[in-house]
C-alpha cells in the first residue's frame, strides 16, 4: 500500500528553543517496498514514523495511507492509531509483561472480535512464520531478547496489516544477534511482499534492509534513493559521511569532461565522478571512501589518482588494517587488506579508481 506525506510540519519547544522536528516533509512511499528513514538522533525520523502511525500528530500537512486520508490538518481529519490497520514493532518491543505469548500475539485479533478458533489458528500460523512454534503458553517475561523481538514481529503481522512499521527494532540486540537478524528480516520481508517503513540510525542496517533509503537531517529529508546510489554517489557531504566512512578533500574543479572531472586539492589533482556537473572553477569536495584506497605496487608516478604518502596510526583489526596515510599535510583514512605486508611509518603508494570517487558541492 502506498503512503503519501504532504507538507508535514511539526515544531515543539524545549527549554525555550523552538525545535522543528518535521520541516515541510513531502514523501511518497511506494507499495511493497522496504523504506528506511535513516538519520542521526533528533533528526525527526521517529516523529515522522509516529505521525504515520497516529501516536503523535504534526502541526500541518496530510498523511494518506492507500486511498485513505488518515490525518489532515486542513481537513481536520484524524483517524486514531487503532483504526489505521497498521502493524508496528517498537524499539523496546513493548511485549506486555502480564500476558503470555498467545495473548500478546492474539491481541490485535481479539480487538477485531474474531472467533476464538480463528484467533488460535492465526496466532499459530504467525508464530510458525517467526519460528516460534509452540511458544503460545510461554510467559512474556520468560523470553530472551531475540524471542521478544520475534513475538513483537508476530504481533505486528498477525492482523495482516497494510503497512508494517519498525522503530529501531534491532538496537536492543547484541551485535552478533543483530547481524543475523538483519539478514533474516530482509529475506522475511521480501517474502511477505508488504510495505515496510523502518527507522534506524544504523547505516549498515539501512543499507542491508532497504529498497529505498531516505536520509533525514534536522526535520528534513536530505536525500532519497536506492542504497547503492546513496552509497556510491550521494548528493551532499552530510549524506556521504553519514552512510559510510568518507575522506572529504576540498579543492577547485580544473577540468570537466562528460561524467568525470579533475579537482585540484592540497595533495594534488584527483579525478572523480562529477554527476552533479559542477562547472570549472567551482570550489567542491571530493569524497574518497577508505575501502576504495588500495596499495599501488606496480604503478609509476604520474598515473591517475596515484599518490605517495607515509603510513600512520596503523592498527590491525583482523579483517583489515586501518590507518591514516599522510600526504603532504593531509591525512587520508584507509582500510587495507589484512594480507598485505605493511608497517607504520613506511612510505607507500596508493591509488583509487576515479569512478568510486565523487565530487560534491562544498
Amino acid at each position, binding site marked *: 500500500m502506498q503512503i503519501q506525506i504532504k507538507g508535514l510540519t511539526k515544531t515543539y519547544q524545549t527549554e525555550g528553543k523552538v525545535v522543528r522536528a518535521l520541516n515541510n516533509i513531502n514523501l511518497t512511499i511506494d507499495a511493497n517496498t522496504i523504506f528506511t528513514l535513516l538519520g542521526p538522533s533528533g533528526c525527526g525520523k521517529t516523529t515522522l514514523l509516529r505521525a504515520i502511525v497516529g501516536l503523535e500528530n504534526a502541526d500541518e500537512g496530510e498523511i494518506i495511507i492507500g486511498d485513505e486520508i488518515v490525518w489532515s490538518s486542513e481537513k481536520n481529519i484524524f483517524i*486514531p492509531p*487503532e483504526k489505521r490497520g497498521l502493524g508496528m514493532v*517498537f*524499539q523496546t518491543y513493548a511485549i*506486555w*509483561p502480564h500476558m503470555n505469548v498467545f495473548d500478546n500475539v492474539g*491481541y490485535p485479533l481479539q480487538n477485531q472480535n474474531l472467533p476464538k478458533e480463528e484467533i488460535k489458528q492465526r496466532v499459530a500460523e504467525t508464530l510458525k512464520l517467526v519460528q516460534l512454534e509452540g511458544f503460545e503458553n510461554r510467559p512474556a517475561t520468560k523470553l530472551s531478547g531475540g524471542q521478544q523481538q520475534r513475538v513483537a514481529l508476530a*504481533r505486528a503481522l498477525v492482523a495482516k496489516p497494510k503497512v508494517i512499521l519498525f522503530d529501531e527494532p534491532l*538496537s536492543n540486540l547484541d551485535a552478533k544477534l543483530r547481524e543475523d537478524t538483519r539478514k533474516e528480516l530482509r529475506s522475511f520481508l521480501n517474502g511477505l511482499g508488504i510495505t515496510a517503513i523502518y527507522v534506524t540510525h544504523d547505516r549498515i542496517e539501512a543499507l542491508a534492509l532497504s529498497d529505498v533509503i531516505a536520509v533525514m537531517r534536522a526535520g528534513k529529508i536530505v536525500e532519497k534513493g536506492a542504497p547503492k546510489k546513496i552509497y556510491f554517489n550521494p548528493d551532499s557531504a552530510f549524506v556521504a559521511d553519514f552512510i559510510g566512512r568518507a575522506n572529504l578533500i576540498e579543492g577547485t574543479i580544473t577540468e570537466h569532461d562528460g561524467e568525470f572531472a579533475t579537482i585540484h586539492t592540497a595533495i594534488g589533482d584527483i579525478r572523480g565522478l562529477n554527476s552533479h556537473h559542477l562547472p570549472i572553477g567551482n570550489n567542491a569536495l571530493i569524497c574518497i571512501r577508505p575501502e576504495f584506497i588500495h596499495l599501488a605496487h606496480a604503478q609509476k608516478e604520474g598515473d591517475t589518482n596515484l599518490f605517495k604518502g607515509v603510513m600512520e596510526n596503523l592498527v590491525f583489526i583482523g579483517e583489515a588494517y586501518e590507518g591514516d596515510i599522510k600526504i603532504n599535510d593531509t591525512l587520508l583514512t584507509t582500510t587495507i587488506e589484512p594480507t598485505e605486508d605493511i608497517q607504520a611509518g613506511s612510505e607507500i603508494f596508493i591509488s583509487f579508481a576515479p569512478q568510486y570517487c565523487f565530487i560534491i558541492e562544498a
Partner: protein
Amino acid sequence: MMKKITLTPALIIIVGFLTICPVFMLVLGSFMEGFGSFEGLTLSKYITAYTDPGLKEMLLNTLIFTLGSAAVSTILALFLAYMNTRTNIPFKFVFKIISIIPMMIPHILFCVSWALLLNPSNGILNRLLMDVFGLESALFNIYTLPGMILVEGLLDLPIAYLIIAPAMNSFDVSLEESSKVCGASHWQTLMRITLPVLRPAILASIILVIVRSLASFAVPSVLGMPGRIYVLPTHIYKIISSGFAADYGQASAIGMSALAASIVLIYLYRYLTSESSRFVTISGRGFKPTLIDLKAYKYPLFTLVGILSFILIILPVIVLLYTSFLPYSMVPSLKAFSMMSLKNWYEVLKDPLSLLSLKNSLILGIGGATLGVILSIFVAYVIVKVRTKAAGILESLSFLSFSFPGIVIGVGFMWFFVQTPLYGTIWVLLIAYIATYLPYGIRPMSSAFIQIHSSLEESSRVSGAGAWTTMRRIVIPLLIPGIVSGWILMATMFVRELTVSVVLSRPGSEVLAVQILRFSEDGLWGQLSALGIIMIIISSTLVILVTMLGNKFSRIQAGS
C-alpha cells in the same frame, strides 16, 4: 574488615532489642495474670479477650474500615497519578504538594477538623447546609464507618500515591502505544494493559494502606469512639484505659491478632514489591510520552483535583485556625467574628501541661530523629554494603517493625519498661519511637547507599584515602539527601506521634498528640485548635528548615 565483623552483631543486638523485645514481652504478657510481675502462666486473658460478645462486631468494623480505606486511597491515588503522568492537566505542581503536605498536618488534627466540620450536632458544614436548605437535621455524620473510611482514605492517600505514581511514571509507554496500534481503544488499553501491568503496585498500595489503617489510632479514636464504633486499636485502648486497673494481659491477647495480621500483610507486601521488579520494563530511549489531551475535560478534572487538595490541605488548617479564636464551635457569621479573641491561645500558653507536652515533643522529635537517623545509617550500610548472612538477618529484623501497629507495640514495651527505672520517663517514648519507626529511617538511607556504587568508594581507596576518610569525604556527602529525608520523616513522625504515646505516656512524659487527644475527649476545641496550629507550625518548620539545609549541602557537593 575487622570493623564489619563487629559492627553487624552489634547492630543485630540493638535492632533485635528494639523489634523483638516488645513482641516477646507482648507474648509473655498475654499469658500473665497480673501486670508488673511475671508469675503464673494463664490462658484466662485469651479466654476473656476472645469471648467478648462485642468482639465480632469490632472485627467486622475493623475489616470494613481497613478495606474501605484501602479502596478509597488507592482509587484516588490511581486517578491522581494517571492525571499527573499521562494527561495534559494544568498546574501539575499541585500533585507534588498533595504528596508532601499531609506529612505536615498531623493525622489527629485532620480528624479533629473533620469532626468540627461534619459532626451531627454542631458541625460547621452541617449547620451551614441546614441553614441554606432549611433542613431539620444534620445531613452528614462523620462519627460513622463511612465517615471514618473517608477520612482515613484521605490520610493514607499520600502513601498510596507514593507507591503508584513512580510505577505509573516508569511505565513504558510503548506498551500502551502498541496496544493502540493493535486496534484497541483508550478504554480497552486502560483496562487490558495499563491497569494489569500496574497490578503489583496497586496490590502493594492496597496492602500497605490496610496495614496503616489497621494501626491507625487517630481516626478511630476521634471519629469512631464518639459513635461507639470500635476497631482493633481503639478496642485495645478501651481495655487499657477504662476501669480501675488497666488489663494489659487482655490487651496483649487481642493485640496478638493485630500483630499477626500486620506481619503477614507486610511480608505479602514485600513479596509483591519484589515481584513487581519482574514487571519493570526498561525503555530504550527517553522518549517523552504523548500526553492525553483532556480537551473539554481539562478544567473540570482539574477542579476535581483542586477540590481534593483543598480538602486535604487548606480546609483543616482554616478550620483549626478559625476555631482557635472562638469560645465554642459555631458557623462563620458576623456574631462569630465579633466573638473572636486570643483567649484560647493565652490559655494554652499558660497551661503547664500543654507547655510540658510541647517541650517533650520537641525533644523527642529532634533528639529521637537524630538518634534514629544515626542508627539507620549504620543499619542501612550493613544491609546494602556488607551483605553477609548476618546482614540478611538484620534486614529482616529491621523490616519487621514496619508492620507493628503502634498501640500493640506500646503495650509490649509497657510490659518491659514497667520493670525498669525508666518507666514513666521520656526515655521510654524515645526508645519506643525509634523501635516503631526505624524502617522509615532505614529506607531512604538504603536507597541512598544503593546509589553510591562501590566503585566510588573503591576509587577513593585506590587514590590513597583510608576507610574513615572515604566515609567522610565520599560516602557521607553522597548520603546527605538520604540523611535529610530520613531525618525529616522521623522528626515529623515523632512530633505528632500518637499511637505509641497513648499507651506509654505517663504524667510527666506527656506529648503533643496525647494532649490534643485529651482536649478532644474533653471537648475543648478552642484550646485544641491553638495547640494544633502550634504543632503544624513545628512540623512545617522542621520540613522547610531541613529541606533548605539539604539543598545547601547538595549545592556544596555540586561545587558551586
